[in-house]
């Protein structure tokens, strides 16, 4: 029998909207700060304009928690430092998306139930 181990502490850690958007943005590939802000605007359909103060505060906490890591990217852009998800960060994002999927299903089911009354 296969046992799947999950870190309990990660499952209980709540994610704020900026953190969720940052992790989602980094899920596909690494990005530097400016690219993160642009992608977050895109992800949120222009609804969220994250400030540099908010972005780098969140990045600092994510680095401290080991959910992302910073590295030097050899390219031609102005910014050399980029961020990428670690295995821990990827699992945390997966857990949060699972939670959201469950909540969405439950929410729609209840709406349908209320409409059929």
């Amino acid at each position, binding site marked *: 029998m296969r046992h799947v181990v*999950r870190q309990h502490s990660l499952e209980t850690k709540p994610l704020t909207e900026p953190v969720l958007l940052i992790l989602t943005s980094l899920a596909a590939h690494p990005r530097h700060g400016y690219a993160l802000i642009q992608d977050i605007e895109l992800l949120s359909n222009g609804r969220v*304009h994250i400030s*540099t*103060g908010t972005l780098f505060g969140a990045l*600092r906490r994510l*680095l*401290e928690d*080991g959910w992302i890591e910073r590295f030097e990217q050899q390219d031609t852009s102005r910014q050399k430092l980029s961020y990428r998800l670690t295995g*821990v960060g990827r699992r945390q994002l997966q857990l949060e998306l699972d939670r959201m999927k469950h909540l969405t299903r439950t929410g729609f089911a209840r709406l349908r139930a209320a409409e059929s009354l």
Partner: protein
Amino acid sequence: MRKAYRFMLLLYPRGHREQFAEEMNQVFEQLAAERRERGWTWYVRFAFGETAGLIGGAARAWLERRSTRPEPGQTPTRWMPQELAEAQQRVDASVADMVQAIANHRFERARVLSNQEREAREKLRELREKYGDEYGRCV
């Protein structure tokens, strides 16, 4: 606005400034140029947003700095030099990934992670020699 931004960065704790100030400046300048092109309404909104974000961010950074002072015996990653903290986190992440791979019977993956962990530990050992023992035992 650029000067005001640099000045407001002084509100942050020193550690945060050393780690991010240069990068924040670069991002701010790129954003400012882009918002100016979109028009003055965008630029004014951007300026207010940045000011509020910096003040809030600095306040939060100070509060977190106070609330995360390590207990005796606790691994003080938040108080280490950045490269040391990141090396410590790489070791921790490698160990966690390896444990999970073994638990899920993915032994080939575990072997790869074990090599990564060994390299990460070696890097951490070098950094600990560089910085000395003032940051406590971390491995």
